[in-house]
């Protein structure tokens, strides 16, 4: 035997031993994949015969969805996945979705409607459960999501109540898409809380606005008063009520309600001053009214009411030119607003 032949035989033997050992290692080790593990590389043909190769380092994230034929939960999970991927639109370009189905007929999960084909989805008929074995799947549906570095980011088993929110949040996280929800809290249940005090106050204020528009000021005052009962310290409520009181000439009440309020925002400060000036003007205290209204119009130069009230003050004081200027400004704001 020549040396070359000997080397070749040794190499072949070493390769055989390595293959045997690696098979034994794969056979023996626990199969189940967990968060933080490296996604296993694989290659499989999709139902159209096209080979899908998953290799590390491509910089795309991967979602592998294991579904079982004839399982209601799997069909529902497939519908959810389709909806989620479709909503990702152009963001889905950075995503590969592999759907492994244990029965080729169940490809209908994803292909029933040709108009509904979802971009970037590779449906693989895993009849011999090879992919199942690679990922250690024991139940369906199971969804595994990797990040861009091929590390398993999330494993979701079962089509439970939080399936869609969790999958969406984890995909968004993996794709770096901004979202309001913290992915770790995606399974936490939140419900509409329309019975909160804030919600009830808002309802009363809205109704007051509608009544005001209909000229039913007393009814509007009643509505805002209900809001005030719910939160006596609400600035928004006090401002609404103050204006309504001014409209019906209840000047003392208007001054009382805004007098104990403190505003931090510029527009709210302007509104407080405007109400005080309006009330003072109606009470005949023109000097104080002018002072408040000048300050208010400085803070909010877009309030028609502010300039109108200022015009009223100047008119009452006999300052015709200033009155005309203020009224003109108010009218300009009214028409500009339209």
């Amino acid at each position, binding site marked *: 035997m020549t040396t070359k032949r000997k080397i070749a035989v040794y190499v072949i033997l070493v390769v055989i031993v390595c293959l045997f050992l690696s098979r034994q290692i794969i056979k*023996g080790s626990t199969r189940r994949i967990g968060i933080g593990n490296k996604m296993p590389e694989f290659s499989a043909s999709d139902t159209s015969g096209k080979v899908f190769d998953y290799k590390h380092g491509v910089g795309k994230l991967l979602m592998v969805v294991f579904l079982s034929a004839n399982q209601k939960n799997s069909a529902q999970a497939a519908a959810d996945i389709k909806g989620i991927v479709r909503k990702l639109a152009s963001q889905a370009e950075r995503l590969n979705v592999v759907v492994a189905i244990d029965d080729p007929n169940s490809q209908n999960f994803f292909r029933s409607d040709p108009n509904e084909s979802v971009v970037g989805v590779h449906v693989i008929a895993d009849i*011999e459960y090879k992919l199942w074995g690679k990922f250690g799947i024991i139940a369906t549906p199971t969804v595994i999501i990797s990040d861009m570095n091929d590390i398993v980011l999330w494993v979701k088993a079962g089509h*439970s*109540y939080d399936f869609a929110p969790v999958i969406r949040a984890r995909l968004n996280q993996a794709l770096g898409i901004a979202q309001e929800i913290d992915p770790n809290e995606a399974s936490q249940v939140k419900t509409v809380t329309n019975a909160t005090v804030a919600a009830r106050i808002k309802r009363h204020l809205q*109704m007051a606005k509608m009544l005001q528009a209909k000229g*039913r000021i007393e009814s509007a005052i009643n509505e805002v008063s209900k809001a005030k009962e719910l939160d006596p310290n609400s600035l928004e409520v006090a401002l609404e009520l103050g204006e309504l009181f001014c409209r019906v000439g209840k000047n003392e009440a208007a001054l009382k309600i805004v007098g104990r309020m403190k505003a931090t925002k510029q527009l709210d400060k302007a509104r407080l001053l405007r109400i005080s000036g309006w009330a003072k003007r109606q009470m005949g205290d023109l000097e104080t009214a002018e002072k408040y209204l000048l300050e208010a119009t400085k803070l909010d130069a877009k309030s028609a009411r502010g300039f109108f009230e200022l015009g009223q003050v100047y008119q009452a004081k006999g300052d015709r030119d200033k009155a005309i200027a203020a009224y003109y400004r108010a009218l300009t704001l009214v028409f500009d607003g339209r």
Partner: protein
Amino acid sequence: MGLEGVTMLEKIYKSVVVLICVLISNGLAVEKPTSLQKTCVTEECHADYAKKAYVHGPVGLGDCKACHKPLKPEEHTWQFVRKDRDLCEYCHLEQTTKKNIHEPLKTGDCMQCHDPHSSDNKFLITEKTIASLCDNCHNITEGFQFLHGPTAVGECTVCHESHSSDLKDLLVSEHSQLCFSCHVVTQDELKKYEFIHEPAKNDCIGCHNPHGASNSTMIKDFAPYLCYTCHKDIQNVAENSMYQHSVVADIDGCMHCHTPHASTVKFLLKKDAMSLCITCHDKPQKIGKDEVLPAFTKELEDKKFLHGPVSQSDCSGCHITHGSKYFKLLAKEYPPIFYAPFSEENYELCFSCHAKTLVLTEKTENLTDFRNDDLNLHFLHVNKERRGRTCRACHQTHASNLPKHIRESVPYGKWELPVGFTKTETGGGCISGCHLPKDYDRKKPVDYPAP
């Protein structure tokens, strides 16, 4: 003077007094004009028309002929210039242009609500408030303890047009928009939720009475009856199933688990499924005459290994909440008795998540870790002519302290037969009462002689 004389005198006095009064009143009274006048509203005639807070336009202008024309002026008799609804519509045409018209307008009976001359109430309405005006015909609040905001304050026109509307019930805008014109917070909140109850999107009055009710949330009926008006399928399951979930039939039972408007999760759940279940199942529950279901939480206490659905807080993975034909409200077939023989049909429940091939394939390297080399030990256990073991014989349903939630023991009469399962890196073994101690290894298979 006799008695007769006195009576006579009294009669004369009375007649004189009456005569004087008549003369005075005739002297003061204004004669009805017998010829056409410029206006009817003067200090002498019909003066009160102009003295109220709100005066109809023509009356204010003294233009009575806008509505009245003389019939016989010499007798001071008049008639309307136009008939029926034309009288008002001639000027107020815009009030009746929409598809649905308020009933009085159809017959031209505008005066049912309005005073044609003047009123102390805005819009010349005949009652002090809109509410009392509407209440004359529409008695909609009878028996209600709780009234909807606009109804409570008598502002019917917040939601309804008084004259005509293109929408049913003379609504001012579509249902879907109308409620949200005040309930803005709800509208804003709903936008953030993925799972919204269908009526909450556009048909609030599907569940709520828009005027009021005998309950504070103003729902038309209590759950489950209200829910059943749409969810007939659930009603059927809840009422006709062999095994029923008692809470479903309770008044407001649906609300134990579901929220009526929107949730971040499907089925509009209020909390995660398990939290909902353990609001009751954290303590033993009497489920029959003599049967008590142990506290579910007790089964989980200090357990290291949970069954998948339990670890996912998803009791509905195996149980149907509303009712089932399978015992313990299970979703599919699962034998109620422990030593039921194995068959695919008997353990349909398990195979809703786990592939049947997991137990039906004799040789595999992919389907399970429970194998000696490639011999599937699931297959070996269940496929025996006698005493074939089943899923529940080895696996605890909810949780255990052994990997794969393997049972620590199995019931065998009064004896709890230990299973003695241990797991190794590449296999495991059982020192059980079921058979002689046996091990398995995927890497270095244990050699067992053929029986």
